[in-house]
């Protein structure tokens, strides 16, 4: 077995620091997920509605978020708000704001997509069966929509967790930054540490995202 420099992780508080960094990444992403999923569902329903003004506004919002790289959004929210209005957002707050803006936009489009993918005959058949509008949604449309949404939203959630690696650019010290700090501090003593530590970082991301994937496949099976 080649020397992966893993002993570096046993020095001082290095492992605890790495886990602390993971917690920072998770705190940002999970808080953002918790806010943006319900908001996204709400906006998605509005987007598939009939009001043209609302639809146009949401469309513009979605496109702006979709076109802008997350890095640009982070810089705009972190530095831009200070320049424009003198707000002094912390790096973590700015990150949550950006991730909520992004998550909500993408989630709303996923919900819109799932809703319009339900064929028209589903609505017509339930009407023919004498179900009310509320019953149609509750028993026919929503269960089908949710099933279609699960794999899509899991993709979004895991992507949000992994994209936290960008927030180091606005001074938030998360797991990847801690890893780089550890590698750099030991570049003389353990020049091979980079490989081992990035491997550990990979495992940490994997252990975080994998349970979410498992939950998704469980739900998909259960609701088949």
């Amino acid at each position, binding site marked *: 077995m080649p020397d992966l420099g893993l002993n*570096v992780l046993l*020095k*001082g*508080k*290095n492992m605890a*620091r790495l886990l602390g960094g993971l917690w920072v990444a998770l705190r940002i992403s999970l808080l953002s997920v918790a806010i943006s999923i319900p908001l996204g569902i709400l906006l998605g329903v509005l987007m598939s509605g009939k009001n043209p003004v609302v639809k*146009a506004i949401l*469309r*513009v919002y979605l*496109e*702006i978020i979709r*076109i802008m790289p997350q890095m640009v959004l982070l*810089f*705009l929210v972190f*530095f*831009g708000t*200070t*320049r424009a209005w*003198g707000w*002094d957002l912390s790096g973590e707050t700015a990150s949550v704001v950006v991730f909520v803006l992004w998550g909500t936009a993408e989630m709303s489009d996923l919900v819109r997509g799932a809703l319009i993918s339900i064929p028209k005959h589903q609505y017509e058949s339930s009407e023919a069966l004498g179900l009310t509008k509320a019953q149609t949604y509750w028993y026919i449309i929503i269960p089908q929509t949710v099933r279609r949404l699960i794999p899509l939203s899991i993709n979004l959630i895991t992507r949000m967790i992994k994209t936290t690696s960008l927030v*180091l*650019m*606005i*001074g938030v*010290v998360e797991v990847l*930054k801690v890893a*780089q*700090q*550890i*590698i*750099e*501090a*030991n*570049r*003389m003593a353990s*020049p091979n540490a*980079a490989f081992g530590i990035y491997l550990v970082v990979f495992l940490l991301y994997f252990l975080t995202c994998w349970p979410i994937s498992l939950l998704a496949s469980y739900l998909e099976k259960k609701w088949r």
Partner: protein
Amino acid sequence: MKKATKLTAAALAATLSLSLAACGSSASTGTASTSASADGVVYRTLDEIKADGTINIGVFSDKNPFGYVDENGEYQGYDIYFANRLAEDLGVKVNYVSTEAANRIEYLQTGKVDVILANFTVTPERAEEVDFALPYMNVALGVVSPDSNVITSLDSWNADDQMIVISGTTAETYLTQNYPDIPLQKYDSYATAKSAMENGGVAWANDNTEVIAFASQNHGYTVGIPSLGSQDTIAPAVSKGNETLLNAINDEIKALGKENFFHADYEATLVDTYGTDYEDSLVVEGGETSAQ
């Protein structure tokens, strides 16, 4: 319907390009807007920092031996050694902010840190955006390459090869201006650029201290070009116009020169990396460069 979509797209593109253009201009004319919009709103004066009791100092957290974090989570290095002393003499605590090469100016222009002490090379372009204090170190550019293919001159550059640089560093600016034909491979952080070099990079241009250190610690690499471009200095920087803080730092650097503080700093933090041979050529004591 199709027409409407096209129209929306066009309108969107227009709005976006406008807003992007606005961002671009605000970034390049940052100095103009700060001095015009507010007298001291962006930055904190010396008195405000003292009243608050904490100074925010932007440093590198992954640039051993200048600014890095040790295994106990403590900031260490040449820049930190000075930063700790500066804070001690000002009578305040330090809050270290981890910065990257590419966002150091932005941090000062938005007042999110009071001082940048992140191996910051003085250049005329940067001096328009921020105020530099007296220097505390000398630096030039250098190029490191593998022993198998040592690059000693940039004049016969193979157009298929890419030069590794870190975004926002002097090396990037110098190469873009003087060698526009050399393709650059840009990285955001020191650690990623280093990984790229170790994984088959052709050459890496950076401050010569960095490439000397890299070559001495990694077998199989040679500094083919030890001194490229002009001799520059490294200095602390504050937000444009923050005179009280600037004067305090300058006074501090002058006073520390009397006790040969930066030589002590070198011996505490840099000697393991560069050896004693480079001590007098790298250290600037009391803000006085010997070259001038």
